[in-house]
């Protein structure tokens, strides 16, 4: 095995274990921590695929922002502090949805690479290259993102508004 394959094996193992722990953990904050590990592993896989910028953006956005939002949400609502469990009885549905997503992803990835493995071109992953293709080729999707952000923010404000006004 080459060094990269070795690193990938370790990452895959850690990612899988933490993903399983994530769904089986009884305590939501522990689950959030396992989510941090899983998302970091995904970032590590991006690094292995020579997409350095994407890898660190994954860490920055998902680990540094999204999970923080989750933790805020948990603390704002009803996460017990300290050693208490919080769980529900929706394993069956979650299992079905997970299976569906897995099937879809496998189908898509199989369609894209047909089991041959992705071709790595490290020069494409650089920040400058990414910028050129993002701002030359994919202008419209890029601008659409700003609409998405706008909608997300307005949604957050509307939802968080308290209806205690008479």
């Amino acid at each position, binding site marked *: 095995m080459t*060094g*990269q394959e070795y690193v990938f094996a370790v990452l895959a193992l850690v990612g899988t274990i933490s993903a399983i722990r994530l769904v089986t953990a009884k*305590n939501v*904050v*522990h689950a959030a*921590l396992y989510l*941090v590990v899983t998302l970091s592993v995904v970032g590590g896989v991006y690094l*292995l695929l*020579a997409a*350095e*910028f994407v890898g*660190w*953006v994954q*860490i*920055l956005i998902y*680990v*540094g*922002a999204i999970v*923080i939002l989750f*933790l*805020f949400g948990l*603390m704002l609502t009803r*996460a017990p*502090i*300290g*050693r208490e469990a919080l769980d529900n009885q929706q394993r069956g549905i979650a299992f079905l949805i997970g299976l569906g997503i897995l099937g879809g992803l496998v189908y898509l990835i199989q369609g894209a690479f047909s089991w041959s493995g992705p071709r*790595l071109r*490290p020069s494409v992953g*650089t*920040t400058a290259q990414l910028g050129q293709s993002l701002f030359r080729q994919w202008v419209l999707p890029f601008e659409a993102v700003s609409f998405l952000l706008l909608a997300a923010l307005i949604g957050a404000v509307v939802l968080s508004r308290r209806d205690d006004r008479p």
Partner: protein
Amino acid sequence: MLEAAPEMDWLDWILLVARVVVVFFAVLISVMLLIWMERKVAADMQTRMGPMRAGPRGVLITLADGIKLFFKEGITPTLADRPVYLLAPVIAMIPAFLAFAVIPFGTGVTLFGRHVPFQIADLNVGILWVLAMGSLMVYGIVLAGWSSGSNYPLLGSIRSTAQMISYEVGMGLALVAVLMYSGSLQMSQIVASQDRVWNAIPQFPAFAIYLIAGLAETNRPPFDLPEAETELVAGYFTEYSGIKFAMFYLGEYVNLVVVSSIAVTLFLGGWRGPHPSFVAWLWPLLWFIAKVVAVVYLYIWVRLTLPRIRYDRLMSFGWKFLIPIGLLWVLATGAVVVLPDVYGKGALLTGALIVVGAILVASLLWPLIAPRRQSAGETPQ
């Protein structure tokens, strides 16, 4: 494929590990001296002596404190979530050390015929790395607050997290402005791009934003609301004592060293400075240390001068002032660089685009700016 790992013999390995170990302990010692310096400067400004007993002029005071904390009884509160409670101080410390990895603190030295750079790793995405480590710094605080199973830490950690993430945006925008000037995310390139003029001069607003955001990121006075002892006892580390408290303390000061070093690297020319030609490797290092000490002194001075800011003012300052100024500055920098260059060929298309964009924005903004009218069915209160 990825490029095959470069051939490394045992000497390379030893040099690599030695470099990392030396840097690690150098940072530890610099933190020790930094805490002593802070106490001495504070004492000086308040006309007292400060620590005098441990070592000459009290220079070993931090070591003495550290040893005391090391042998102090550690308490795990009854309601604490033990694994996370123990994890939090370690997590608070590690990202601070890792962030230091990309900072060039000198040109390097040749040892045994090998070039040893004075930088742990010159990543292609250096600035992004700094920002990512900064965002991980929040975890130590969130987890400490949650896992303590106590009220004050929880309140303090939520407050602190909100503060840190708010100022992280401002910091990111300041970094983007630097990036536009240097055209690279790599720290060595950024230092190289400042050979004629330091970024702090053309990019002064970005520099100011960075320094202020750095103050908030390190939770230092006047932005030390997480530890506002008059209202929150000690904030997120209320329940921590002994070595675990020492780790939070250490992490905080390593963070201060890192924030100052980044300020020096990005805005103050890094290790650059005039120097004599003999022992060429030493002078850049000394320049770097001198500049970092100057920035740290500034932070200490601010701490001793300004009172703590009220929380609502802190948040409004971050969101209503720092971020809009940062965004405008990024756009202004872009305009100043681009407009003189390419006014001409594509002007028709881009001009049209700007007008369309402006109309779009104006139409979206109008309902917010327009004076509110009473809708038909509503009765005035």
